[in-house]
């Protein structure tokens, strides 16, 4: 099928869009620093090295198959006709970006944005599986994520797929809305992280015989907090570019997007700091950092649609959510997730998706196509719920099965004895800080 192409983009929009997309590597750097800072000293170099490899593999895999299967509204796609309604389920483009003129058209800008944002999605599992995931397995798992899972779901949301068409086909508001990628990037990455945490199991020494978790604090809080600042800049670029390309807003409206992104992150970090101060007597830096990122994650879906006060509220809820769920998952579900990626990206992403349905009022103001308020309010929440159901009912089992199969072919976990000496020595042959003496209590968790 080849639906009607969206209107050509004005040059000023192209220029703004390219500028915003080029901010995105800062989000990659931020997430890589956060993951590294939250892992232990013995795996710091491995974490940064794996981050680079994962971003590279994600870009190549997306270049090979990803954009062909994701597509963009106006490009050809595979469709099913069910009871007279068309369901676009997969892009039908050519592999290796053939047929996509890299000339500043909407499709080419979307391809550029996705080549970077798929790396962001791929960095999320890396934080959750830190210190015990083989480098080779990271790369292969990332290829599956970036080459198959991500583009299929992203087609449904951003490529003119059936989730985006829920409004036109079934009267569910304006269809599934996600301007900046709370679902396509964050929740997909977060659910993949959950699969890997399950498949790899906890780090050695994390749980005692009674099943109680030990604290294995990260080795550099400064990296983590610096990463948060870099992530803010990158996220503003991601949300702004996504809003132009996938929500159709004018460049001037990206002011609202930036304000919403900042307010959401601010609300989240303040909520996390206040709650940890109340619970533990002092604010917790790593949980506050998790709150900050969770605020960014939750802001993405609704950044172009909700008013600033709603963005602040979304952030406050996100900060509270992450503060409680990180510890709860660790203690009650046995999830050893050093970066809190499942809480931050999966739960934060799902909250962001649902929040679009809770605060739909500014959609009519921003969208460049006609929509009555009744049309928006009637089914928007339901469209968002269908999106969440798709993440839980399709993406999670699919990514789990892919990684389970990969684990059967190539064991993904570092062997126990090598895990004790650290991923740096085992995989890279040298530590991140060779001039530092390692204290014996670094190994006392064994």
């Amino acid at each position, binding site marked *: 099928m080849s639906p009607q192409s969206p209107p050509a983009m004005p040059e000023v929009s192209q220029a703004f869009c390219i500028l915003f997309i080029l901010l995105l590597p800062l989000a990659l750097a931020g997430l890589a620093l956060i993951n590294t800072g939250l892992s232990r000293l013995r795996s710091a170099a491995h974490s940064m090295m794996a981050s680079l490899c994962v971003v590279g593999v994600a870009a190549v895999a997306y270049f090979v198959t990803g954009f062909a299967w994701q597509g963009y509204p106006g490009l050809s796609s595979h469709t099913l006709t069910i009871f007279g309604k068309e369901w676009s389920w997969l892009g039908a483009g050519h592999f290796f970006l053939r047929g996509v003129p890299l000339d500043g058209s909407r499709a080419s800008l979307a391809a550029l944005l996705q080549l970077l944002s798929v790396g962001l999605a791929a960095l999320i599992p890396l934080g959750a599986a830190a210190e015990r995931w083989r480098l080779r397995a990271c790369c292969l798992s990332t290829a599956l994520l970036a080459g198959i899972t991500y583009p299929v779901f992203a087609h449904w949301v951003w490529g003119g797929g059936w989730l985006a068409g829920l409004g036109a086909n079934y009267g569910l508001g304006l269809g599934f809305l996600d301007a900046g990628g709370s679902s396509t990037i964050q929740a997909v990455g977060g659910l993949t992280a959950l699969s890997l945490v399950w498949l790899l199991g906890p780090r050695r020494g994390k*749980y005692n015989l009674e099943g109680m978790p030990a604290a294995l604090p990260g080795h550099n809080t400064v990296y983590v907090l610096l990463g948060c600042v870099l992530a803010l800049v990158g996220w503003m670029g991601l949300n702004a570019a996504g809003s132009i390309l996938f929500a159709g807003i004018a460049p001037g409206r990206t002011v609202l997007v930036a304000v919403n992104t900042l307010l959401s992150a601010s609300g989240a970090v303040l909520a996390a700091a206040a709650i940890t101060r109340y619970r533990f007597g002092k604010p917790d830096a790593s949980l506050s950092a998790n709150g900050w990122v969770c605020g960014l994650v939750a802001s993405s879906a609704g950044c172009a649609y909700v008013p600033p006060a709603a963005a602040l509220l979304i952030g406050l809820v996100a900060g509270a959510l992450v503060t409680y769920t990180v510890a709860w998952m660790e203690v009650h579900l*046995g999830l050893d997730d050093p970066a809190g990626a499942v809480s931050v990206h999966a739960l934060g992403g799902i909250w962001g998706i649902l929040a679009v349905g809770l605060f739909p009022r500014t959609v009519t103001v921003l969208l460049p196509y006609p929509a009555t308020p009744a049309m928006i309010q009637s089914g928007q929440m339901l469209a968002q719920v*269908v999106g969440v159901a798709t993440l839980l009912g399709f993406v999670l089992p699919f990514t789990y099965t892919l990684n389970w199969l990969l684990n059967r072919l190539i064991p993904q976990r570092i062997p126990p004895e090598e895990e004790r000496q650290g991923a740096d020595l085992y995989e890279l042959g040298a530590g991140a800080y060779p001039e530092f003496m390692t204290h014996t209590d670094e190994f006392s968790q064994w």
Partner: protein
Amino acid sequence: MKITGLLMMPAGWIIVLAALVLLRAVLARNLFIAAGLGVEILGLVLLTRSHLTAKRGNE
């Protein structure tokens, strides 16, 4: 338990899709979508419990 949980999640999703395609009445459609989501959550709980049991077994 793991395979059951893994199968229940797509089963719930299919209920959601079927409700969208087959049902026109708003209340019935919403109820079936909620039911599908409930089945998915049940599958998620089973999958989580299967991994918790495996972890305790390893300890």
